[in-house]
């Protein structure tokens, strides 16, 4: 990869939309996509006629129970008679969809792109977690009867062992995010809880308790992205995409050190390089690290180089990542507080940064002035790192 010195047209986000995050929605998946898309278009002051390309993101087809899920969502995503594509990097998809929209626009092929992320996890019975059995290698791993939470617990245990963090230190992230989510209108699991509540909740796979984990969720999120010229016409406050980064690690996750997310670090370096950021820990004002589990936010803060390896858990204790702290993380409430409709959750994070950078986040607006922001998502078997850097 090289920096493109010829690039004249920047890429902007000009609108965002979100459905409520729910345990069970009446809406079909395509209706959820439509609701979010409609809101995003309205917020940008555009209609569907203005859109020339559509990028869809959604995680496993086995949640919604639809083969060809991208094709299924097409009409709800406004893709009728338009170029439509679905990109897919597991849980990392949510942040990856706007990244893909970036190259649709930066290449000059499209001018106005509708970005849709949707997930309906409730159709799968008896429990959506059952679906995760099929993400494992069918020959070497599936016969052991794994549950998705195993792999997270293993990573968390390794992080604890290597970095000296305790369960109660990590639980602080869950407390912070669920509290932040109280101000979010889409939130599913917002609450005022204590570290003790986390430690006393049901132990699923030690060291992971129920309140360490984000919930099963139905929901959708959408963005409208345009080229610089179009953005200048539409709005006075576009949010710019300064850099994108994405990496896929090898599939053999058990052949790797689990304490540090190398997959994310490589993606972050790619995005920072494109954005011209040399010292992310100083230059980034607000971040939305991916937090399906509480330790995962710490892990990702370190991968994004917003804290030194093994130091994020110490900074949480000091309130460094609170909304009024030095470097607010997950001011939205994150996946732990707002909910985790896999792909839609990542796009929700990008939408949150969009609102933060326009000072439109209302009660959720962070205290400090904001100029540069970063969001990331993770996916697959500890493999996919997707990073987007935004500025106002």
């Amino acid at each position: 990869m090289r920096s493109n010195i010829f690039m004249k047209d920047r890429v902007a986000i000009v609108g965002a939309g979100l459905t409520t995050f729910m345990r069970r929605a009446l809406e079909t998946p395509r209706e959820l996509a439509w609701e979010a898309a409609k809101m995003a278009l309205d917020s940008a002051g555009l209609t569907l006629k203005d859109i020339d390309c559509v990028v869809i993101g959604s995680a496993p087809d086995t949640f919604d129970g639809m083969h060809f899920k991208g094709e299924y969502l097409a009409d709800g995503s406004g893709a009728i008679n338009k170029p439509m594509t679905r990109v897919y990097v597991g849980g990392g998809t949510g942040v990856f969809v706007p990244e893909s929209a970036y190259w649709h626009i930066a290449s000059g092929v499209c001018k106005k792109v509708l970005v849709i992320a949707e997930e309906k996890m409730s159709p799968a019975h008896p429990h959506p977690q059952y679906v995760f059995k099929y993400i494992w290698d069918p020959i070497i791993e599936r016969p052991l009867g794994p549950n998705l939470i195993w792999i997270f617990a293993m990573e968390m245990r390794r992080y604890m062992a290597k970095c000296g963090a305790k369960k109660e230190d990590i639980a602080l992230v869950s407390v912070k995010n669920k509290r932040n989510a109280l101000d979010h209108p889409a939130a599913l699991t917002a609450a005022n809880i204590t570290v003790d509540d986390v430690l006393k909740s049901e132990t699923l796979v030690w060291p992971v308790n129920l309140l360490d984990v984000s919930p099963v969720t139905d929901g959708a999120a959408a963005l409208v992205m345009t080229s610089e010229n179009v953005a200048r016409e539409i709005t006075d406050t576009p949010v710019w995409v300064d850099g994108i980064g994405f990496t896929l690690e090898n599939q053999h996750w058990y052949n790797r050190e689990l304490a540090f997310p190398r997959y994310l670090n490589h993606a972050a370096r790619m995005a920072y390089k494109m954005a011209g950021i040399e010292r992310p820990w100083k230059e980034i004002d607000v971040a939305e690290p991916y937090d399906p589990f509480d330790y995962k936010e710490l892990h990702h803060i370190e991968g994004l180089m917003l804290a030194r390896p093994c130091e994020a858990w110490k900074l949480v204790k000091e309130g460094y990542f609170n909304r009024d702290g030095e470097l607010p993380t997950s001011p939205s409430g994150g996946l732990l507080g707002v909910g985790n409709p896999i792909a839609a959750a990542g796009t929700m994070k990008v939408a949150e940064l969009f609102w933060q950078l326009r000072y439109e986040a209302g009660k959720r607006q962070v205290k400090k002035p904001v100029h540069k922001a970063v969001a990331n998502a993770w996916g697959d078997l500890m493999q996919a790192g997707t990073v987007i850097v935004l500025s106002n």
Partner: protein
Amino acid sequence: MSYDKRNRMEDLVIFPGEQEVEKYVYTPGIHGLEFAKGLKEGKILGMKCHDKIYVPPKTFCPDFTQGELVEINDEWILVSYTIVYQDMYKNNLSSPRIVGVVKPKNAETGLIHLLNVPLDKLEIGIKLKPVFRPTNERKGTINDIKYFELS
């Protein structure tokens, strides 16, 4: 791999697998719920978008505005048809299925459904009517309509 592939069948393992859950539960959606209620009552609902009518109602119009529900009382026209003689594994079906696209005369779109029409009468443009199952057998799904037949 590459240069040392094996060709003795006993050296090669085939490992069975699946990607199933116990079941999927699909909610009918916003307009879908009303459509389902209508079917149970022996009615077919459509959606009016500006001046055009779409069947079945799909909550939003192609231009993303929200449609309005209307009851369809038109006669139905056959838009296209086919006859399925075999399954995908090329086994002959004991009874071939006639599948058609049927739309109300004044609507833009219509339903995909089974037809009960003699083969020699089968032609694009013929007039059809829905045949509902008896009230006590209706569940609010597309199968509440048994098939379409000549009107």
